């Protein structure tokens, strides 16, 4: 048995000192890594809590605006307010065309070359009620393909 300290021999000292020298530098790494992981997890929990708290708030705000919209329109009609005070709707569309290459289309048993154009659009509708100072802006991205026939040579 080597459980008694007074039985230690030079080989025990040698091995003990060697392993301490080799491995002591690694002590504390696991604790530090665990602490760092806990901090990351805490930050992630905080972010989630903010998201969970802000989503109902955003929904509530959107509902308030949505409820305000028909109400103000009806009042405008009833009271006959001037055109300047009526809600305005602005629609803006941005688009760009991207060349998507040439394909062959079969028609009446013949193949015709057709240019494919990918049209990407962003349609923005801006609704503003000057009386209520309420604004709703809806942005809708769209994409569709346009085929343009080509003259075969």
């Amino acid at each position: 048995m080597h459980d008694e300290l007074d039985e230690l021999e030079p080989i025990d000292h040698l091995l003990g000192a060697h392993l301490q020298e080799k491995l002591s530098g690694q002590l504390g790494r696991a604790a530090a890594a665990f602490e760092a992981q806990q901090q990351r997890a805490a930050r992630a929990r905080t972010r989630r809590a903010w998201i969970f708290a802000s989503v109902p708030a955003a929904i509530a705000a959107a509902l308030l605006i949505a409820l305000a919209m028909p109400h103000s329109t009806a009042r405008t009609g009833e009271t006959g307010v001037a055109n300047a005070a009526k809600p305005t709707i602005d629609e803006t569309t941005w688009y760009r065309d991207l060349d998507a290459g040439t394909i062959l289309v079969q028609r009446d048993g013949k193949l015709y070359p057709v240019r494919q154009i990918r049209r990407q659009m962003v349609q923005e509708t801006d609704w503003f009620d000057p009386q209520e100072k309420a604004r709703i802006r809806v942005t809708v991205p769209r994409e569709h393909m346009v085929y343009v026939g080509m003259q075969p040579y």
Partner: protein
Amino acid sequence: MRRPRLAEPLVSQETLESLVQRAQRGDAAAFAALIGRYERTALAIAYARLGDAEAAGDAVQEALLKAWQSLRTLDEPARFAGWLAQIVRNMATDHQRRRQRQRADAGSVEPASLDTPPAELARQERRAAIDAALAALDEVARQIVTLRYFDNLPSREIAALVGLSPAAVDMRLSRARAELRTILDPSTDAPASGGW
């Protein structure tokens, strides 16, 4: 060398079980205490498999994080040490495989610099000789040696970790010490390099 704690373990079994149970309920402070208690044990086990202190540190770090994530799967809190030891062994095996692939890619080891002072060179040679002597042992014997000499564990605790009886641990330790003494005896030939 750290003062041995062979006679009185730092954490009693009752405290250990309550720490594990608290950690299982998500108490990070309790798990941090368990890390403090078992980091040396885990390092000893990983080093016995890998033979590289840095890699052993990496494996232990990953193993303890994995243990925290899967702590709820441990049915018997009293068996925490053995359960953790197995995670450390598995993680060390993964590192070993990765290292073998990296070695195959990296090629040969860098030789010692010509500017190294003779005394430092002698120390390096001595360290290399001890490493080679440890590498010549089988892995169970190496685990017993590292657990005894780095973690100062009593035979009873080593036995629980390596799956042997305390008497068998004593016998293996005695044999390993004799082998190491023979290999490291300066009167004998230079130690053969082992395959860790």
